């Protein structure tokens, strides 16, 4: 995929929103998140696994998600992530922005979203 700076920015921003959105449903671990992104976007967004964990750590640093180790019977302990109230707030705002964006795009360029 051609990576112009605009696309890169869009991607970064959207990656974070995607992760937040996924965690909104329930808490997940890293592999889970990457698999879901891949699956739900129908492959359109090929998520570079290399950027998954840095993004997660960045989000954690910002206080939007928090991770904790969970040990279940018969499994190695895994690190699960979930949204913080701040993260929830951010997600809401971002959703609003994206919706507004698409609305504008629609009006201007008749681009609808799915």
């Amino acid at each position, binding site marked *: 995929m051609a990576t112009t700076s605009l696309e890169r920015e869009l991607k970064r921003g959207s990656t974070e929103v995607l992760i937040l959105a996924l965690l909104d449903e329930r808490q997940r*671990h*890293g*592999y889970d998140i990457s*698999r879901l992104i891949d699956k739900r976007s129908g492959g359109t967004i090929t998520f*570079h*696994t*290399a*950027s998954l*964990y*840095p993004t997660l*750590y960045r989000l*954690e*640093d910002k206080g939007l998600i928090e991770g904790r180790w969970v040990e279940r019977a018969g499994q*190695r*302990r*895994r*690190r699960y992530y979930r949204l913080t109230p701040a993260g929830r707030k951010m997600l809401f705002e971002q959703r609003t922005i994206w919706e507004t964006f698409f609305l504008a795009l629609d009006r201007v360029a008749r681009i609808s979203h799915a």
Partner: protein
Amino acid sequence: MPEWKSLLRASFAAGGHDPGDDIIEELNAHAEIAYESARADGCDAAEAGRRVDALIHTWTRDAESLRRRPKRAPAVVAPSAERVRLAGIIQDVRYAIRLLRRGPGFAALAILTMALGIGATTTLWSVVNGVLLKPLPWPEADRLVRVTETRDGRAGRVRGTVMNGTFVAWADHPGTIDALAGWTRQTRTMTVRGRGEPSRVPAVPLTPSAFAMLGARPLVGRLFAADEGARGAPGVALLSYGLWREQFGGRPEVVGEAVQLDDQPYTIVGVMPRAFEFPDREARLWTAWTVPGVVGEQGAQVGVIFSAMARLRTGATLAQAAAEATARARAAPDSALVAMALFGAKGPIDVQMTPAREALTADVRPAILVLLAAVALLLVTATANVASLQLARATTRRRELAVRASLGAGQSRLIRQLLVENAIVGLSGGAAGFGFAVALLHILPSVLPVDFPRMDAVTIDMDVAAFALALSLVTSVACGMIPAWHMRRLNLVETLAEDGVAPVGGTLRLSIARTRACIMAGQLAVACMLLIGAALLTRSFVALMRADRGYDPVNVLTARLPLPAGYAAERRLQLLDRLIERLHVVPGVTHAAYSTALPFVSAGGFAAFTMRSPRNPGVEMDVQATQRIVSPDYFAAMRLRLVAGRTLSVTDTAVTPPAIVVNQSFARKYLGDHPIGFHIPQRRGRAGIRFRDDRTDWEVVGVVDDMRQDNVDAALQPELFASFTQIAPVGIRNFDPILVIRTAADPASYVPTLRTLVREEAPAMALDSVMTMEDRVMTSLARPRLYAAVLVGFAVFALLIAGVGLFGVLSYSVALRTREIGVRTALGAQARDIVWLVLGQAAVIAVIGIAVGLWTSFAGSRYLSAFLYGVDPHDAVSFGAVSALLLVVTIAACLVPARRAARVDPLQALRGRW
């Protein structure tokens, strides 16, 4: 399942990174799931392993960004609930200190004002505490009572005394008291062997029973035995600690040493401890004394007047003791004639008991209470001032407080902040005031009159410190509650949205301005009250100074010349006459005389006799009068006014008929309309006066105007004057002459000359109590002067505070109304009108304040009447002058704010940039 942890670690290490165990483990878990997933998808182990390896490869390629910052501690730790309150208060304190530092002018003014108010109040409280409240320093002091007697309701010439008849009658097996003691005061010439100069020492003859009653123990030696002090017994003396250190070197061997008092030998039997002061701090020596019986040698009546004290038996009341003493006294033998002379009446006797502490302080209690009231007013005005300043600050801080409130600070939190701020100012002021009080108390003994009772008990102790602390806190709360009350009604939205100079909508500032105006009126009222009190007392003091005393105290030098007891009357007179002769030739000396009596020094003696009334010849009257024996020049030296007849002169000698001069009171009371030439027949049974010629009748040769012996407002006494040359030697055997010298210029400059002359004529003798007559008058006025000075000080302080406060309030109000003034000016108002606006506001405050002050003073000044002489408590001059002064101060305080108001540029004001 293959192991990827070590591979991960090795891969990262190869790139020089170490992401940490946590991340390794997370990536490991991811790898594991990826492997299992690949296998579940149908890949074989090798393929799955290859996928995972690729994963790891991408991770290690971007190892830099695989960093999780360690979990930081949150920036703000929510404190545990228990610590919140304390932390909150400390925070308030720090904040308050910061605020005060930012406004050092306000802080300094507020703290200084509080310091002066609290300092003055604390000083006065320590006086109240020490003088009126603290128990006397003797064991069971609450059972100690002073015994006094009156006859026919009249008190003795010397206040607070009893006669020997009463004392002796009661001392014999009393029922209601444990012990009875008597004492007098003397000044005696002490000569210590081996020590050159004789010195004058205040001595107190005391019955031995006194020490048991006071629970006193000697420091060295022993106390008086019960039988010591009897007439004719060898004299024994106890030294005070101070005298022992100064004159006897503090040696314990002083016990048993001999000492001469007025040429009589005494043996020192002991030394009293430093803390022992009886009857006051002046006494330096105690001699054993017995109260003489009523019947003396050869059947002569002996009447002695002295002070007495008793200790009540447990369970006995004052009334019971008084009743017992009265009954005994009335039944016992009495020296009636002497009583007549001393009391103006023979009987019936009434004995009174007063608790010792009350008796000691009764003199000063009213004055102290008045001063306490005055200082309380002062404190109120100081506190009001600080409160008013805080209110002004509250205006500028309302935004800050509104923001805090909107951020969640509750009402109580804000109030607590304000209280803490005020507490800091109050406590700082209190601490400074406490220091100020300590300093003041150091100089107090030198400022107060010497006879001010219980000065030793006036100290700074825990009680006083606690009082100062309590005062600081109370005033802080008072100062803080007013702004806090205003904050209570803070409308958040309005305040936050408020335009800084809107004339309306500033409801908070308006209500603050109103409160400040009320406080201001109150301060003016307080200043008015204090000023009126000060004016009344000052006028009274001036009247006392200028009062006509019957003599002219200006340019008169006086001194006592104590003569040895052994000197016969003739020898005394010769010595004194020589001295007077020599004084007469000193340039600048216009008159010189000697006498047994002088105002403030000694009344002389008392005479009592009977004679026929000139108005009703058939009636015998009891006459009692003060008697003064004088040399001829006395009348001229004192400038006594002659009303009729002549004064005594050199023509009255031992061989001419006895001549007396009387004063107006005597003439009016006893002699009818034609006093001159009246003859008073010689009689037996006279008390007091004895002429050489005891056969010829006395002739009244002159009448002089009344002379005041002590206080100007004391009752006038009948007096008679006789010449030394005509008095029988027995009558002048023991007197201590008083020299009176009138000079042309400053009398104090003649002191060295006088001393030289005395040294030449009487080498072994020393002058005592050398003072100008004016100084004596001023000393007698020490208390009125003190009270007036203190009240003037308070009044000036209150006026200053009021003036500055008024200035502040008006400036504040002008700033508040800037826009309004701008509007008015723009609509055509002249500068004059604007000035009237400001003056009008000031006038309202001033009129209300002064009116309240005047009304309160009018109602309350009658409490001052006990202190006033020659001035009515509702003296129009004082009230008028004070009102005028306050109006002037009001106008002065208006000037600057009014000018500022007049200079308001309407354009700038309307734009809101003024």
